[in-house]
């Protein structure tokens, strides 16, 4: 009897597991095996680390935009208009250097893009070099094309849930469907000063985002482990690193938490460290007062409007804001001055006193004609 029980249990489990695997392989909810053809694509915002590697493997492109949520509102069409070529945006919310390194390794091997445009978020270099910004275990099995390690994908609950939703045409999980703006999130968000400081405590500016402390050595280790090898291994790819702008409140937060020196030191170290690579360039928007000090550009202390995204791309295409040693020194000095001489309470109070724009239709932020770049 024991033998028949065992056989019955294993046969039943195997049959169900095989059915689940077959369904997930057929639907392929995270686009791991193919570009969607059987079903309209679904871009699951909460599962970017699962979906981006498949997209990187199977889509056509010759330029990659990536980085944290600050980069998600860059529209590939805007980049193509400004720079030519065929761009894909593989940004990920809370992307760390590890996340970026793993993803770029896939993209570089698959398509050998001519350019990678990536923002350098200081917080992305905090913690251990293999720290992912995603709370779930990092799905390393989706970052290669080996079949043997795909069990979690083929049998896992998230793939199964999404496959069933796709097959039944349900819209339970949150997802977008437009391949031209896979991770765009600005619609539905409002960008004005009072909104940017909503819920902020000027005495503890980090209370909401709870960013961890960083050390220069830790940031250096993370860069060396995750990005330096890619720069060396792909000399034909231009790595355009972007210091995307934060609001002044972020710099005040850095000063508040003793993170200002380490942030500026990292900028200096990285510039020196990568000087030897002709395929590396930097663009720095963080010391542009028109963006940094005008909180009407933000929905919170970190995230700027698509207007800024578009302006950055235009500026990069025209070669403006490109870092030189002199500009780096000047920008560092300005950031240090602003961060140490500005009163956070005053900034927050001023922002709260500013009236909200009358019309808050966020679609107005992405007009077809584009915007003037910041001066």
């Amino acid at each position, binding site marked *: *009897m*024991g*033998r*028949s*029980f*065992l*056989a*019955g*249990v*294993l*046969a*039943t*489990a195997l*049959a*169900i*597991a095989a059915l*689940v695997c077959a369904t997930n392989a057929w639907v392929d909810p995270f686009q791991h095996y193919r570009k969607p053809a059987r079903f309209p694509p679904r871009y699951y915002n909460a599962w970017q680390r699962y979906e981006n590697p498949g997209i990187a493997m199977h889509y056509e492109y010759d330029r990659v935009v990536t980085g944290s949520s600050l980069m998600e509102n860059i529209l590939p069409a805007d980049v193509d208009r400004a720079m030519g070529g065929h761009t894909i945006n593989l940004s990920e919310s809370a992307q760390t250097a590890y996340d970026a390194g793993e993803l770029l390794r896939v993209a570089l091997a698959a398509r050998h893009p001519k350019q990678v445009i990536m923002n350098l978020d200081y917080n992305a270099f905090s913690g251990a070099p293999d720290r992912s910004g995603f709370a779930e*275990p990092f799905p390393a099995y989706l970052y290669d094309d080996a079949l043997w390690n795909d*069990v*979690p994908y083929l*049998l*896992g*609950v*998230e*793939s*199964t849930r999404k496959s069933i939703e796709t097959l039944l045409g349900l*819209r*339970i*999980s*949150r997802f977008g469907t437009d391949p031209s703006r896979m991770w765009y999130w600005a619609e539905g968000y409002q960008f004005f000063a009072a909104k940017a400081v909503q819920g902020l405590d000027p005495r503890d500016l980090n209370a909401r985002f709870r960013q961890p402390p960083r050390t220069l050595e830790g940031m250096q280790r993370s860069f060396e482990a995750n990005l330096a090898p890619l720069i060396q291994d792909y000399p034909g790819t231009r790595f355009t690193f972007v210091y995307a702008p934060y609001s002044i409140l972020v710099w005040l937060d850095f000063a508040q938490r003793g993170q200002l020196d380490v942030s500026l030191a990292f900028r200096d170290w990285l510039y020196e460290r990568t000087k030897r690579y002709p395929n590396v360039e930097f663009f720095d928007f963080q010391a542009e007062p028109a963006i940094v000090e005008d909180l009407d550009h933000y929905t919170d202390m970190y995230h700027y409007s698509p207007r800024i995204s578009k302006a950055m791309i235009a500026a990069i295409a025209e070669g403006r804001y490109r870092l030189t040693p002199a500009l780096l020194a000047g920008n560092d000095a300005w950031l240090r001055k602003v961060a140490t001489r500005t009163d956070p309470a005053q900034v927050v109070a001023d922002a709260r006193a500013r009236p909200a724009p009358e019309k808050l239709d966020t679609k107005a932020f992405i007009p077809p004609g584009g915007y003037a770049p910041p001066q």
Partner: protein
Amino acid sequence: MLFNSYAFVLAFLPAVVLGYFAIARLSAFAANAFLAGASLFFYAWWKVDFLWILLGSVAVNYFVGHRLSRDAAAGRNERWVLVAGIAFNLGLLGYFKYTDFFIANVNAVTGANLPLLRIALPLGISFFTFTQIAYLVDAWKGKAAEYSATNYVLFVTFFPHLLAGPIIHHREMMPQFADPKLKRLDWENLARGLALFCLGLAKKVLIADNLAPWANAGFAQAHALTFADAWITMLAYVMQLVFDFSGYTDMALGVALMVNIRLPINFDAPYRSADIQEFWRRWHITLSRFLRDYVYVPLGGNRKGEARMLALFVVTFAIGGFWHGAAWTYVIWGTMHGVALVVLHLWRKLGRPLPRIAAVAVTFLFVSAALVVFRAPSLADAGAILASVAGLHGFDPSLTVPAWIGLVHPASVAERAADIATLAVFALALVLTFTPRNAHDIARDVRLEGLPRYAFGALLALGLVFIENASEFIYFIF
């Protein structure tokens, strides 16, 4: 390696079971050596650095135990060897588990600013330390003797119990490892072991892991909970913990049974207990047994008067609490249980027993409240949650925690669906907790033909699907 991982279920477990019985046909010694090697591999899978600590601990205890057994056989009871052995074990545990706790407390009391050492805690160290302390005491008393290094390694590292118990005795394990009859594949044991494993896996991945987000979310905002939020927080954790830990134990017992080894039962429907003494006979039974035999009794037990006995209740449970972790919350939790035992003892003297249903309710509420202290990041957080539970902040029935706010104000279809699913799991957990038969009973009595095998097959498949949510077992940190 986690029991709830694809690597374990699909590769390690089948390979070990098949390999063990295949090798056992050739040599019993080789089969035990294979099992010991597999157990070390299982341990090292997580972090190979910890393997050396485990092996060092095993080696020292083997030699000390060897000496104690030899002396006991010769009629010599050299206490200093035992004391040295126990000191080594407590020193090892103390260094890895409690160093930073003591530094932090010294800093707090003296105002010093000594840096914390941030020592990584080797997995299962609390369990393999207690197992070996028990072995040394038994060897000193002449109740245990182990002269085979391979057998000793297997006894301590046998992978089903290595990381989170049950805490075993040498005398209940070694006869099983030595019995040649148990080296033959037994289809019924294999079947019932698999059934128990399936139930444990389901308890872990279908119930405990699905309640975890609610428990975590509630404890994360301990100071902003309404009356209703606080009750959900407390009960979600109470259910998560019992299904997590007893699920782990069911898997451990099931896996051991597959190779014809019976580990001691560690859980027996503890939330159905009618008093706190009964609770500790049903909850983490092998820890209770250890604390009774190796702490409470040696310190005097009930042999030195009632006052000493009552004091020992509190001391023993405070030590038990401290064993769980280097934080005052654990000490307070243990002390609460010790005090509850004292109260029970005094109440019994009054000769006015409560009706069983009321006794079960009171015990469950006490255990739940104590578990809030156990889980809370700080005593202040625990106090805030318990105050909300008791209605000291009012009796606001509204739900405000984002993790379950979708029950009343869903932001999306997804959020509502997720919260309703969690609520259903919550309800299922409550029902299962108070049903009369536990997983062990079900696996022991299940009919091995007909429909049950398909039901267990479906349960295993469902467990495999939900494994991808894999999380560590709560007791791995202890």
